[in-house]
């Protein structure tokens, strides 16, 4: 069982919502669609579900061409950012609704709903109406509705976006477990790179209606094929600068900071990408290099410190562990872990991928 998009393209009027895309999702996988708002995640999901038809290209499911087949005839379910439940049904009736429509026997419905409700910690609320539940519970109900059906394809469109922080963390941890032993393909759309890392599986990075890269989540994160994919998969945003390399010696174009690089690449000018957590207030790794910075913004969250600083023309972000108190305007020393630098050539392709 697999879901395959073959050269799928979607145009609305003169706007291209999805540029020609091919993607193959395998059975028993969780696939994250990672991209900012309007990157085309929802459109892509609606095409996968059959809620929307591609302008050109084909969709194959389980070895069959299902392009243009209506959503009712496919076995899929979807969870939305908004908590979508039938307003005047109880939680039980809501979860049972897809089974009732397909004519499953009452006993079986009872048993299946009970099981799913337990999995999602809804057992105590089966007789309540959605309005009486918290946002988290409403979304759990919607998730239960999607799970109870035993769909082949489960689509989750930013399911955690409307939840407050604590509930989001809680549900995010549970999600991968929910799909563990199910014979289905899960697609999870999100704008947050941390969601993708937490969920694991595979990730497709999207920008402006194009799939930039698709592969194992960690691989995409550690070895982004190109600068765009690296940018999409980095939060806080990736720091980028131009450098020149001569032999083992590397140097920023904008300042005098130098370091030795073991990357097996030709001499020349490159762009490097540095993830914020590789610039810290303390030394990390064996090959760290010092850089001076003028503090612009200093944000402390409980366990991490985000320091925005400038160095000449560079305006960068660093992320350190612990609470590193810095004053705005202060000159400070930071350390870059050069082992983690990503080198991109003039065509923005990653070159140190060995």
């Amino acid at each position, binding site marked *: 069982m697999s879901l395959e998009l073959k050269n799928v393209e979607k145009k609305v009027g003169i706007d291209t919502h999805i540029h020609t895309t091919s993607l193959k999702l395998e059975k028993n996988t969780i696939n994250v669609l990672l991209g900012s708002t309007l990157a085309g995640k929802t459109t892509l999901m*609606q095409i996968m579900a059959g*809620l929307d038809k591609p302008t050109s290209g084909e969709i194959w499911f389980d070895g069959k061409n299902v392009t243009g087949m209506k959503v009712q005839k496919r076995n*899929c379910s979807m969870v*939305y*950012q908004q908590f979508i439940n*039938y*307003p*005047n049904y109880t939680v039980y009736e809501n979860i049972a609704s897809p089974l009732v*429509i397909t004519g499953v026997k009452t006993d079986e419905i009872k048993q299946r709903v009970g099981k799913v409700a337990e999995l999602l910690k809804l057992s105590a609320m089966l007789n309540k109406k959605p309005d009486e539940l918290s946002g988290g519970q409403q979304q759990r109900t919607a998730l239960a509705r999607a799970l109870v059906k035993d769909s082949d394809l489960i689509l989750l469109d930013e399911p955690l976006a409307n939840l407050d922080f604590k509930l989001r963390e809680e549900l995010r941890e549970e999600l991968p477990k929910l799909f563990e032993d199910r014979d289905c393909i899960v697609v999870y759309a999100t704008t947050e790179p941390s969601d993708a890392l937490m969920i694991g599986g595979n990730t497709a990075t999207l920008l402006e209606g194009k799939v930039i890269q698709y592969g194992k989540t960690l691989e995409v994160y550690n070895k982004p094929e190109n600068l765009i994919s690296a940018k999409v998969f980095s939060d806080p945003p990736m720091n980028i600068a131009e450098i020149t390399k001569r032999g083992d010696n590397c140097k920023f174009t904008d300042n005098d900071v130098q370091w030795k690089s073991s990357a097996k690449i030709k001499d020349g000018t490159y762009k490097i990408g540095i993830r914020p957590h590789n610039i810290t207030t303390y030394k990390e790794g064996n090959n760290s290099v010092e850089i001076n910075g003028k503090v612009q913004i200093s944000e402390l969250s409980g366990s991490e410190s985000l320091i925005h600083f400038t160095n000449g023309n560079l305006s960068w972000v660093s992320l350190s562990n612990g609470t590193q108190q810095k004053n705005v305007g202060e000159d400070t020393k930071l350390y870059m872990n050069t082992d983690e630098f990503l080198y991109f050539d003039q065509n923005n392709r990653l070159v140190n991928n060995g």
Partner: protein
Amino acid sequence: MNKTINQKAWYFVIPVFVLVAFNAAIPLMTVVNYSFQETFGNNVFAWEGTRWFKQILLSERFHASLGRQFAFTFIILLIQIPLGIAIALTMPKKGWGVPVCLILMSMPLLIPWNVVGAMWNIFALPDIGFLGHSLNAMGFDYNFTQQPGDAWFTTILMDVWHWTSLVVLLSYAGLNSIQPAYYQAAEIDGASRWATFRYIELPKMKKVLTLAILLRFMDSFMIYTEPFVLTGGGPGNTTAFLSIDLVKMALGQFDLGPAAAMSLIYFFIVLLVCWVFYNLMMKNEAQS
């Protein structure tokens, strides 16, 4: 901490008190005044106690007009609410059709009420009116000035034409506030069109429909101008609804006492029905 006491603030409230007094309280008290007394002009009043109230509540004439009023309101609600929802469902959701439909729908609401009455009067005249003449030409014996059934038919048709738009506009607003994801979710579940309406659209429209029913109830229960111009309450008294009957009594017969008592009873009925209706709706709201 000491609370500062400054009674000057009352001065700011006085204008409102005066306004409300002239606007509502004083006219209402005049009516109350008349309802308990008999007057023969020249500002001479005689105390009558609750006599007028008893007389009105026991009079067959009042029972008849109240019955007609409830029947009329019930019938138009029964037609306008489902019809309004049905029209709203078929209206386009985007494109050039939206403004066209909305403007067409608002037209009847913008026409002055007595113009509506006059329009329909001419429209329905059996000899020269388009509707009346056509019906007769088709073989129906139609004459709204002489046959009570035809008079009712015309009055109801006129009200449906005039006011269904309000229900349409409210329902349309309610429908438009439903997020597309609900329809998609229903589609994925394989829900039928009817199920989508019954379990998504109708519950989501509940609030605007409550408002629509309440507004249509009050307006139709107090209807005066249009039937007055159309039928004048006739033939006989067959379309004399409460307010028409009230005006006949007050200004036609100059029975100021009974008319005042009747207005108060009328007022309390409207208040009571609205209160009961509102509470029932809110009770449902609290449950769900």
